[in-house]
């Protein structure tokens, strides 16, 4: 890979630069873990206080869309990991298509999420805007849907940022990719996989409870 300005003066080598970038990404991911961690703490506190209502709320979510979206996201992560693995000047075209494919799967995820929100709106499940449910569980179910909407919306914002990153990298590294592009792609990939991990847990907390009882 041809490389004019190789690395900034604070680094002694390319591997040093790449290692610093990777450690920096992990520090950033630690802050993100705590962002979602706070939400998940709140979820556990309220699930502990309203166990039946959270099971009931979960039954109102669309497990089919949730499951398809999980598979879509896992596949998208696989494509990105594949692109990182084979990244080189010779494979630039394939890498571009893998990244575009991963971004398209990300957009499919967002589209399905939109369909799901629409369905929940029509079922009067949006607290503060239109929420109608028979008592006595209504209060707890509202809390479940407040968590559901905030957590999935913050996750979706992360997805949109990730999609922009993947598309940008697909465009800038499609011709004459350098090791700097590889490092940038590696950092973006760590972020994308992290967003995937967050969804793995949101899926388990939102869609799976209360299914056996129904």
């Amino acid at each position: 890979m041809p490389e004019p300005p190789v690395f900034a003066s604070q680094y002694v080598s390319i591997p040093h630069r790449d290692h610093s970038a990777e450690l920096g990404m992990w520090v950033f991911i630690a802050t993100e873990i705590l962002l979602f961690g706070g939400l998940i703490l709140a979820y556990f506190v309220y699930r502990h206080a309203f166990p039946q209502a959270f099971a009931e709320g979960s039954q109102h979510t669309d497990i089919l869309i949730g499951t398809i979206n999980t598979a879509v996201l896992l596949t998208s992560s696989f494509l990105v990991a594949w692109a990182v693995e084979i990244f080189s000047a010779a494979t630039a075209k394939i890498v571009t298509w893998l990244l575009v494919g991963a971004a398209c799967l990300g957009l499919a995820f967002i589209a399905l999420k939109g369909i799901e929100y629409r369905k929940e709106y029509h079922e009067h499940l949006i607290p503060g805007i239109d929420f109608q449910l028979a008592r006595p569980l209504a209060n707890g179910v509202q809390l479940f849907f407040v968590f559901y909407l905030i957590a999935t919306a913050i996750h979706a914002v992360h997805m949109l940022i990730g999609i922009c990153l993947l598309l940008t990298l697909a465009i800038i590294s499609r011709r004459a990719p350098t090791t700097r592009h590889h490092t940038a792609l590696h950092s973006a990939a760590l972020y994308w996989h992290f967003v995937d991990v967050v969804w793995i847990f949101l899926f388990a907390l939102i869609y799976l409870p209360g299914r056996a009882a129904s």
Partner: protein
Amino acid sequence: MTQWRPPLALVGAWLGLLALLALTVALAYVPLGAGNAVVAMSIGTVKAALVAAIFMELRHRNGLTLVFAGAGLFWLGILLWLGLMDFVTRT
């Protein structure tokens, strides 16, 4: 021309993740009482570990990177531990 092919480990991790997804959805419909939540979170943890080890390449990384990657989990552990202690022990 095999340099574009994905490594077997990646394909294996991807198929394994999809299989675990199917398993966790199927087990959610089996009445296990309190066990359902444990199963869902355990399978989620295994899936997350697969993503971290293989997609995020942590299996190839040495001590310093693992410490940085583990720091987030460490602080999350403190957050959940101290945050939940009162609620789960209150009578």
